[in-house]
């Protein structure tokens, strides 16, 4: 009765949505979800806080010593905290069959991956900004080298952790014992990035040398693995 006659129907647009449009809408949805629940940031923050406190009980450094070990402490705690958030990246999507929806939709798969990576990047960067004052207070830190370089290292290093982390989280949700699997496959691959970020930070804090080589290595790492992730994500999403 109320059926619309075929002749008057407006022609359906069949063009596939652009990569950027899908990325933006997924990203804004994730940000809104995170803003309302604050799940990722709260769990990461508390976890990182615990790691920092436990480290400060394990080592009792003087200001001079803390400068040379802080690079390691900072990045190890960020790495562990990031894994907490990365593990949750796809859980919600899997629960609500969003991944299946993606598989049958014409939306580019990489849009989903980019949105998730950028989202995780922002969450981990926020975590780092909130945790840095704590490190300064607890470990009595004062950088001898230029501080703006630390910011650059943080951006490169966080992307290095997050891009592979997001990708491997998509792999580990398809395994038994999901939460354990992510660090097992992520940490070995991340070793060069971890070496680079820790040494770059230490070199800047102690002012002993230029962090140029380590920054270049991080940039190469970011470039190589961003490319590989983008070219293989479609394969992982459709793995059967």
């Amino acid at each position, binding site marked *: 009765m109320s059926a619309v006659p075929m002749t008057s129907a407006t022609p359906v647009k069949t063009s596939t949505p652009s990569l950027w449009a899908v990325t933006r809408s997924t990203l804004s949805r994730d940000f809104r979800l995170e803003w309302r629940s604050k799940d990722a940031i709260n769990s990461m923050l508390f976890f990182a806080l615990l790691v920092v406190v436990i480290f400060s009980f394990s080592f009792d450094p003087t200001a001079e010593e803390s400068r040379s070990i802080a690079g390691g402490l900072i990045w190890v705690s960020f790495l562990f905290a990031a894994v907490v958030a990365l593990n949750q990246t796809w859980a919600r999507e899997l629960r609500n069959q969003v991944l299946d929806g993606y598989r049958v939709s014409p939306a580019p798969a990489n849009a989903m991956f980019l949105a998730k990576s950028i989202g995780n990047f922002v969450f981990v960067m926020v975590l780092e900004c909130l945790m840095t004052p704590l490190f300064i207070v607890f470990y009595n830190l004062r950088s001898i080298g230029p501080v703006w370089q630390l910011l650059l290292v943080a951006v490169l290093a966080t992307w290095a952790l997050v891009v592979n982390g997001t990708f491997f989280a998509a*792999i580990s949700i398809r395994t038994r014992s999901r939460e354990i699997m992510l660090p097992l496959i992520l940490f070995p691959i991340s070793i060069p990035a971890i070496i*680079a970020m820790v040494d770059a930070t230490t070199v800047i804090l102690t002012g002993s040398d230029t962090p140029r080589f380590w920054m270049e290595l991080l940039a190469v790492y970011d470039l190589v693995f961003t490319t590989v992730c983008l070219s293989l994500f479609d394969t992982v999403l459709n793995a059967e």
Partner: protein
Amino acid sequence: MKKAVIFYAIVSLVLLSYALHAALVGAPTEQTMGDVQRIFYYHVPSAWTSMILFFINFCASIWFLIKRDVISDAIAVATAEVGVVFCTVVLITGPLWARPVWGIWWTWDARLTSTLVLWLIYVSYLILRKYATGGQTQVLAAVLAVFGFLDVPLVYMAIRWFRTQHPQPVIGGGEGSGIDPRMMHALLANWLAFMVFAGLITFLRYRLEIVTREVDAEHAKRALHDEAAFGGAQ
């Protein structure tokens, strides 16, 4: 095929015995290190063999991602497992040699650390294979293999920036490098023997993988058949 495998096994046994003789008797004793240096004939060939196996694993994984056939995936499993075994041999013989010669079991030098990281990457690959479920295993493992292989040069660059204690390449390492021809002979004999032996166990592992899959497929088919018969009787 069974006869060919037995023949191949005998060849590898003969080669291994010959190489053992060449390493322990044929090669001269090293001037400064003494007899302990003979571990070199196991350490280095194992390292080369494991690198070759990992490289084959990488090629097979790429091939699998393109063609999605059973053969390349079975090759990838077999080479990764056997490669990890040889890599383990390298990591065990290394400290055994280092202790009397350098006075330490382990040092975080470029090649030691890279080998350790390589071992970690391929162990994580095998763990993923074990824990992944259903038909996704092969794709996910192949993807991880690509990541792992691309990571190796970055690992090497990162670690090289630390000081290096490991000797510079003795063979083809520029001025002043080179070893006694009899040592070289023992080294190459061992490498050949190890490669042939690795080929044998990789092939057996490959066959095992193929047969396991055939058996699984047959089980699945029978289960379906039984269920159909059961459903039909109701």
